[in-house]
């Protein structure tokens, strides 16, 4: 008798359902896009192989550069505001009792609102004539008008995103904070640690894992932001809130440039993948 473990090839059948669903949900659409990205689609039955032509065109497109630039600034601003603000909120949530429950429910409310509704709420809220925010700002003498001033539109989308998603970071951080055993705080008091030292040396390190998740989620989501600027100004005024996905949609749906749109989708995908990879490795446990 051989001492080798018998290999049962039939076990592969167990993996098959996953393989099939992954193939249809991810691989097949992805390969379709790859296919489109190297062809010039002239009609339903007419296509010409063009190689890397679309990629070259896309990467040289100044509109894309503009959208990418806006997108990077926007995502950086989202992360720079939402993560610290979320942590600060989490530190302020009561530890237990009805106050904690109430705070959590109130905090979670924006998370329950669909994207397009968030866009609509802010579109009305920030209007200078009938919106509370826009009206008050205008009355205070601030020259605020998101449908005319690019900066105003950009800031409005940013504030909207902060309002919508900071609670997520806060809730995740809160969960991590509650998981820190009491003796850590007790020992810090005995050691004479300042409030800052407790945060820096106990709370922040213990939140690391959760913050990595929060950061990745917000990075990916904000990088794919579409609905809110679409509802608010449709990417305008001008191109002020035309982020990458607006640009993509304009190409694919508006102009029906399937080839360049497909090529750009892949580039877009690779950018997100790369950013997540870099960030994940940066945040990973330095053990």
């Amino acid at each position, binding site marked *: 008798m051989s001492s080798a473990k018998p290999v049962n090839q039939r076990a592969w059948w167990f993996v098959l359902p996953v393989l099939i669903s992954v193939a249809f949900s991810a691989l097949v659409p992805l390969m379709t896009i790859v296919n489109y990205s190297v062809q010039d689609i002239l009609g339903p039955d007419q296509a010409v192989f063009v190689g890397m032509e679309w990629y070259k065109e896309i990467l040289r497109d100044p509109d894309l550069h503009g959208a990418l630039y806006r997108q990077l600034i926007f995502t950086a601003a989202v992360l720079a505001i939402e993560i610290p603000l979320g942590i600060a909120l989490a530190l302020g949530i009561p530890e237990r009792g009805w106050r904690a429950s109430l705070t959590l429910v109130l905090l979670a409310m924006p998370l329950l609102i669909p994207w397009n509704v968030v866009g609509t709420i802010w579109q009305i809220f920030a209007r200078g004539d009938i919106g509370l925010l826009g009206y008050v700002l205008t009355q205070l003498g601030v020259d605020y008008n998101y449908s005319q001033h690019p900066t105003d539109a950009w800031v409005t989308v940013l504030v909207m995103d902060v309002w919508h998603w900071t609670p997520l970071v806060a809730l995740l951080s809160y969960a991590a904070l509650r998981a820190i055993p009491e003796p850590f705080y007790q*020992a810090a008091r*005995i*050691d004479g640690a300042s409030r800052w*030292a407790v945060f820096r*040396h106990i709370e922040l390190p213990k939140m690391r894992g959760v913050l990595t998740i929060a950061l990745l989620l917000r990075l990916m989501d904000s990088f794919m932001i579409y609905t809110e600027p679409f509802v608010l100004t449709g990417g305008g005024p001008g191109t002020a809130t035309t982020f990458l996905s607006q640009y993509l949609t304009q190409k694919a749906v508006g102009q029906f440039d399937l080839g360049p749109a497909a090529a750009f989708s892949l580039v877009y995908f690779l950018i997100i993948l790369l950013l997540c990879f870099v960030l994940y490795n940066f945040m990973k446990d330095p053990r």
Partner: protein
Amino acid sequence: MARIDLEDVGHRYAGAGDSWALRPMTMTWKDGGAYALLGPSGCGKTTLLNIISGLITPTRGKVSFDGRDVTALPPEARNIAQVFQFPVVYDTMTVFDNLAFPLRNRGWDKPRLQKRVEEVADILELQADLGRRARALSADQKQKISLGRGLVRPDVAAVLFDEPLTVIDPHLKWLLRRKLKQIHQQLKLSLIYVTHDQTEALTFADQVVVMSQGEIVQIGTPEELFETPAHRFVGHFIGSPGMNFLACEWHAGAATIAGVRVATSSTQTPPAGAALSIGVRPEHLELAPAPGPNTVPARIAAIRDQGIQTMVQLEVGASLAWAKLRNSPGALSSGTAFARLPPARCALYADERRVP
């Protein structure tokens, strides 16, 4: 280092109703003493420790260090060190920085701090790890760092240990316990050590404080606790197996078991109406071949030969008792026998307490 006085200190946790987690008590912890707080889980020993360190403000009473009232002071203002059951290390810091942390927070200058940290690392054999990140270490080593942070401040009123060796493996536990004892002798620190392990308490401490159900039932040297338990709980809790308590009656000025007068070391008369028993350690209970003074009829229920000793279980009246016999008693068999209670080695207990 300081003398710690607790005056009428008691604590109730919020929401626990009328029950005392720590019943009001008064005691003094001498400067430079090595104390163990011994008792089962939930007896209030950690509560007492946290009251001394200031993590808990007692519901009533006064805590003072060297006569200075510190009841209202938070732990950081009390000049006290405490080591917890599970290792608490600052993950992001090196071992050196962990040990230096309490000193830095108190504004020590660099050369003095360096010297002190190295001394403590030396005592705990952590020199080789000083430059390493604390999070990469094993649980044992992390707990050594916690111990180190407790010992690093030389001027503390006392160092409090809350079951600090729970997560340490048995071999190292033994070494560290000896180390702590040694440190106590070297540095003359006041140490208070909470444990539910009697061996740990008895080997570590000069004075053992035994607690049960929120109350201190006896304070004494290990020998006193063993020889003259003041409370039946102490008798049960200390020793393995614990003290035997044989139900008895009071007849004509003497305790009797099954009609036999039993003389004990107690000289006073027990209060009338109390449930009486005679306490005797298994180590002191003897088997006798025939009736005699202080010898009561018994029945051998079980015999366990443990090699160096023989455990014999006896039924004396309605009570069960163990006798631990050093020398092989020869051929023993179940059935009728006689148990001798050496008068100097047994005492009368009224309800739960020893009759003086």
